[in-house]
């Protein structure tokens, strides 16, 4: 006979941003968006990367640039379905994982459905960044929509210091 046992695996991790991505995250705390410009080809990466993917040059700390928090939607998805259908409650999760880990649980990271994730190319960047797009005018969202970052009141040096991008036109 088949015997199926269950084992939820919870392993804590911490990830090292390094000085380049760390500068980006630190900038978010100050409500600024930081990119890095390749010394060799001049391409601007937002979020910044450790090396230029085109010329494989290491990025230089002195080449950080602050970019305007405005850009264009280059692709988007409206997510209508959570992985498990219903979003689980904190009470449900607290029976399964330690309370300290609940806020880090991916099932609670994601907003209530439906929500929109977009590839956003900031005007002064050559790469796209992923972020949420929110707003009352969602039905008007289309490729090429103009968006602007909306900040959380309290910022902690985290990608979600940007609450979302709002459609401006």
């Amino acid at each position, binding site marked *: 006979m088949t015997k199926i046992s269950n084992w939820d695996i919870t392993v804590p991790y911490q990830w090292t941003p390094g000085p380049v991505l760390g500068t980006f*995250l630190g900038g978010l705390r100050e409500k600024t968006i930081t990119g890095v410009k390749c010394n060799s080809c001049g391409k601007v990466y937002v979020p910044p990367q450790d090396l230029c993917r085109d010329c494989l040059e290491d990025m230089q700390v002195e080449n950080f640039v602050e970019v305007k928090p405005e850009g264009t939607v280059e692709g*988007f998805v409206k997510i*209508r379905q959570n992985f498990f259908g219903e979003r689980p409650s904190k009470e449900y999760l607290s029976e399964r994982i330690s309370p300290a880990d609940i806020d880090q649980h991916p099932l609670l990271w994601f907003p209530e459905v439906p929500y929109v994730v977009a590839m956003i190319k900031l005007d002064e960047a*050559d*790469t796209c960044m992923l972020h949420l797009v929110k707003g009352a005018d969602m039905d008007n969202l289309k*490729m090429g929509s103009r968006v602007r970052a909306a900040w959380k009141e309290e910022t902690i040096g985290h990608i979600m210091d940007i609450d979302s991008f709002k459609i401006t036109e």
Partner: protein
Amino acid sequence: MANKVGVVGIGMTENKSYWNLSIPALYRKGALSAYEDSGLGPAQIDAVVFGHSPEYFEGVNHPEKWCSEAVGVVNKPLFRIHTGGTVGGSAAIGAYYLVASGEFDVVMAISGNKLNETSSAQIGLSTVYEPLIARRMGAGAPSAVALQASAYYAKYGYDGEYSLKVAVKNRNNAMNNPYAQLRIPDYTLEGARETPVLSYPLRMADMCPTSDAVCAMIFAREDKVKEITDKPAWVLAAVSTNEGVTYPDRDWAKPIGLRLAADIAYERAGISNPREEIDVAEVYDAFSVQEMIWYEGLNFCEWGEGGNLLESGATYMDGDLPVNPSGGVLCANSIGAAAMFRKAEAALQVMGRAGDRQVPGAQISLGHGWGGGIQFHTVMIFSSNMP
């Protein structure tokens, strides 16, 4: 100069939920199928290349530790390859390299997954996203491909209707494939249109199922091939490439890595006009829209012409270049085996052993794989004639 290499045996398990087989038992089932198909036994296998996509699908690390016993090949070389959804293709190409190099005579590639061991493959797939800046937005594979789809539609003026037609084509093809998971009689465009939107613009009909499966291929050097079978599938080309993930001006609707792999493969195979010279192709259509994007990457048509190629009817079973006679990944996706199934199905076609899904008279076939951060591609070309 590389040795000539032929495929001399193919093993497949049906794609479905196996609640009565453990992970190694499913690998054993796949290996035994390849032994039965080739007439070989473990003693004749000189090395094994093992593929298996991310361990979080089963929650068991190092599944290759079981593999040597499961396939019956112990005290011989075993190599693990891991390239996400491409892994089955990478393992096949790895096995091909080992034989082509002359180091080994007969090598088995075997790859699979039991996706039904996890309560959510998509939670696991979300851990593919970069942890500090992307994972909060990452929502599994469907949402990444939905971004790709929205970019493709906007760039060339296509819409979801084209993708649904791919889904209907491949689901109807799968009725001829006993190894497919989704075999749905009378699957219609009207029915596909009524399926719910899961990640706009993709509907449920645009998405692959969750399967358990293993696929295996046995590769042999020219002199051994002739001892084993008189109907091998000769390997004309085996190419893999990887695009970057974060490079500037990256266009998800334009897979330059696939075009590069295809062009190299065609050159090695001596193919100057792939649309004319390839008789049948199996591509990694994990999501319906991707089949059209891969047509373009594979140079079956110009950039932007994928939807029009579909509409022309050329890639249907009665067209001049049938794509995914097996039903493709849209009808069976174990991830670990899916890219190898593409190669194995393509090989079966030129062996003339593809059963009800056989394209009559197929001489040259192509099998493709896709994976990673929409970045890895594998292309193999097979022929019924020795190169």
